[in-house]
C-alpha cells in the first residue's frame, strides 16, 4: 500500500508489511467514500448492494460516509472521464492520510475504454491505487473480498492463480 508518509515518499509496502501498517492505522472501523468517474451505473448498484441485508458490510466493520474528510478508503469506479478529473483529484486530496484507494470494475482497471480524448481509460494515472477489483460489474462478494484485502484481513489470492488448465501450479 503506498501511503503519503511524513516524508511524502510513496513507499510500496510488501503484503506482510501492508497487513501490519493497515492494522495499526485502521484499528477501528473503516469508512468508505465512493467516486463515480464515468461508470455505467451498474458498479454503483453493486456497491449500494453491499449495504443490503444479503451482504451487509457493517458486520465486517466497514461503513459508508458521504464526506471525504471522514473517509479512509476511496472506492473508484468508471474509466476516469477527463472532464471529471479535477473533481476526482479534489475528492482524493480532501481525504486525510493515511488513505487506501480501491479501483473497482473493469472500466477503472483500464479494460472497457482505452485512453482517448474523452477518458483516461482507467484510474491508475490519477490516484496511487492500492487494490484492484476486476469484474464488469464486480459482484458484491468480489467487492467484499476486495475490501478485506484492502485492510489486510484476506490475502491477495489472484496473484497465485495462473489461469492455465492442466499446468502444474507453481
Amino acid at each position, binding site marked *: 500500500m503506498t501511503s503519503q508518509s*511524513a516524508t511524502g515518499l510513496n513507499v510500496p509496502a510488501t503484503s506482510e508489511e501492508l497487513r501490519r501498517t493497515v492494522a495499526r492505522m485502521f484499528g477501528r472501523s473503516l469508512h468508505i467514500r465512493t467516486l463515480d468517474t464515468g461508470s455505467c451505473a451498474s458498479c454503483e448498484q453493486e456497491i449500494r448492494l453491499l449495504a443490503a441485508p444479503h451482504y451487509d458490510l457493517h458486520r465486517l466493520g466497514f461503513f459508508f460516509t458521504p464526506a471525504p474528510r471522514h473517509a479512509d478508503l476511496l472506492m473508484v469506479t468508471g474509466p476516469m472521464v477527463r472532464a471529471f478529473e479535477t473533481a476526482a483529484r479534489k475528492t482524493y486530496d480532501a481525504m486525510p492520510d493515511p488513505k487506501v484507494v480501491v479501483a473497482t470494475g473493469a472500466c477503472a482497471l483500464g479494460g472497457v475504454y482505452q485512453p482517448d480524448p474523452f477518458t483516461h481509460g482507467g484510474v491508475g494515472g490519477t490516484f496511487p491505487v492500492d487494490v484492484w477489483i476486476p469484474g464488469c460489474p464486480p459482484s458484491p462478494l468480489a467487492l467484499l473480498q476486495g475490501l478485506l484485502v484492502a485492510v489486510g484481513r484476506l490475502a491477495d489470492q489472484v496473484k497465485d492463480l495462473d489461469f492455465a488448465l492442466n499446468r502444474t501450479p507453481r
Partner: protein
Amino acid sequence: MNPLPVMAGAAAAWGLAALIALTCGSTRAGIRASCAVSGLGGAAALAAGVSALLSGNSRVVTAGGSVVVGTLQLQATSLAGVFVALLGLIAVATALYAPRYHEPGHTTGLYLGVFNLAVLASLAVLVAGNVVTFLVAWETMALLCYLLILRRPRRSEVAAGAFWFLALSEVGFVAIIAAFVILAAKTHTMQLDLIAARAHLVSGDWRVAAYLLALTGFGFKAGLVPLHVWLPEAHPVAPADGSAFLSGLITKLGVYGIALFGFVLLPGGPAWRGILTMAAGAVTAAIGILYALNERDIKRFLAFSTIENIGIIVTAFGAAMTFLAYGQRLLWAFLLLAGLYHVANHGTYKTLLFQEAGVIEHVTGTRDFDRLGGLAHRMPRSSVITFLGTLGIAALPPLNGFVSEWLIFQGLFQGFRTGSHLVAILIVLAAGTLGLTGGLAVYAFVRGYGIPFLGMPRTRQAAAASESRQPQAGPALLAAACVALAVGAPVMLAGLARAMRTVTGVTLRPVLLPGNLTVIPAHTNFSGFSPTWLTVFLLAVSAVPVLIYLAGRPRGGSRIEPVWDGGIVEFKPRMQYSAMTFSAPTRVMFDALYRPSVSVHRASDDPAGSSGPVHYESEATPIFERYLYRPVIRAFEWLADVVRPIQSGDVNLYLFYVFAAVLVAYLIAAL
C-alpha cells in the same frame, strides 16, 4: 460633591468645541481641536453623571432666564445620572471617532458645530429643573438633531428621512407640552421637584391623561411601535456618528421622559397603566426585531434593533409600575434599576455598531449586506470590535447585554408576587414575548455579523476593503466599556442602587448585592448569579478545548486543503447564504406580519425547459407606513385643500376676517 458645576464645565467645553468647529472646521487641525475639546466635555459629563448617581438630587439652581422665556432652572437628579454618564461616554467615543471619519470641508465644520450643540441641548434636557427649561431644551435638541441628519441636504432620501424625524418629533412635542401643562396647572408650579412633591394633587382622570400624553410624546422620540417610523428612515441617511448619537442617546431621552413621568412626577397610578406600558414595550420589541430580520441595509437593521431594545427597556418600566400598583416596592425599584442598566448597555454597544457600520460604509462604499462578505480577513481589528459589540447586543454571556436582559427577565419572572393571577399571566406573557425577541435577536445578529464579516467577499469592493486609515479608537473604547459594564456589573449596580434610593426611596443595595460579587434579583429565594465570576468561568472553560486541541493535534506533517465543495469547478460567492435567504425561515413563519410580495424571473419558465439566469425578489409591505401614516397624511392633505380657498389673496377679504374674529371674540366674552 455637587455635579452641577462639573456639568456646567462640560457644557462650556461643548460650546467651545462648537465654536471652534464652526469657525475653522474646514482644516484637519480645526476638526481635531474641536473634537479634543468635545472629548474633554464628554469626560467631564461622564464624571458628573456618575457623581449625580451617587450624591442624590442636587439643589435647584436658577441659571438666569428672560421675560420671554421665564426663569431657567437646572437640577442634577440621580435619575438623569445614568443618561448624563452615557451622554459623556458617547461624546468621548465620537470625539475619538470623528477626526478620522470626516473629511475636512466647510460643511464638516458646520456639522461638528451642530453636533456639539445637540450634545449640549441633550445635557440641558437632562438637567432641566423646571418645565420651561425642559421644553426649550427639548425643542432645541430636536431641531439640532434635524440639522444633524441633514448632513447631505441635496440627496432626496436624506431630506425625506430628516423630515420624517422632524415631523414626528413635533407631533410628540405637542403631546409633551400638553402633559406638562396639565401637571403645572394642577400643582400650580413649574418646578419639577415641587411637581413631584405635590403629585397627589393631580388626581383621577387628569393623572391618567398626563401620563398617557407623556407616554405618547416621549414614545415618538423613543420609537415605540407604531410611533417608530422615523428611526429606519433617519438612521441610514445620517452620518455614522450622527446616527450613533441618535440611536445611542436621543432615543434614550424619550426613555428618560417616560421614566421621569412614570417614576418621579406621577409615581403611583392604577395597575392597568403599567400593564399598558409593558404591553407597548413588548410589542415594540417583537415587531422591532422582526423587521430588523428583513433588512438588507446595515443602518436600517441597527435602527430596528434600537427599536427592539427600547421595547425591552419600556417593558421593564411597565412591569415596574405594575408591581408598584400591587405593593411590590422592592421589585418596582429593581426593575427600574434593570431598565436603566439596559439603557447604559444599549447606548454603549449600539453606538459601537453604528460607528463600525460607518467604517464599513467608508471602506466598501455600500451598506447592503448582500454586497459585503469576507471582511473579517481584510479588517481584523474592526471585526473583533464588532464581534464584541454583537455579543453584547445579542445578549450572549458574558457581556453586558446578557447581564441587563437577565436582570429584566428575573424581574418579569416574579410576576406571581403580584398576587393577581391575571396580572401574573400578563407579566409572564410579556416575558415570553421578550424571550421570543431575545431568540430572534441572536438569529438577527448572527446574520448581522456573519453575512458582512464571514464567508467570501460578494463584490469587488468588499474584496478590496482595508482598514488602514479607518477610525478604531472610538469603537475600541466602547468595546472596553461593554466588557467593563459586564465584568464590573456589581459596581455599576451598586451605584444605580444608590440612585434608586433617592428616586424611589427603596434601599435595594443589601438585597441586590449580598457581597462576593453576586447579584440577586430583589428577592433572595428566587435566583442569582455573578457576572464577574461568569466571565472568569467562561474564559476558563473555553481554554479547555484549546488545550485539548494543542495537546492532541497530529504531530506529523499536516496538509491544508480547501473546503470540500462536492468537487465543483470553483466556489462562486453566489453559492453562500445571502442576508435575505438566511432570514427566509422567519419570512415564511411570520408572513402575516411581513405580507411579502415575491417576483421571480426564471429562464426555466420557457416551455422548452431551458435553464439560465434566475432573479428572485421578495419585498415586505411596510404596514405602518402604508396603513397608518399614509391615510393620516392624505387626510391632512385633503384638509389643506379644503382650507386653501381662504387665502384668496383679496385684501378686503382679509379685513372682513379680522372683523369677524373680533365680533366672535366679543360675543363669547359677552356670554
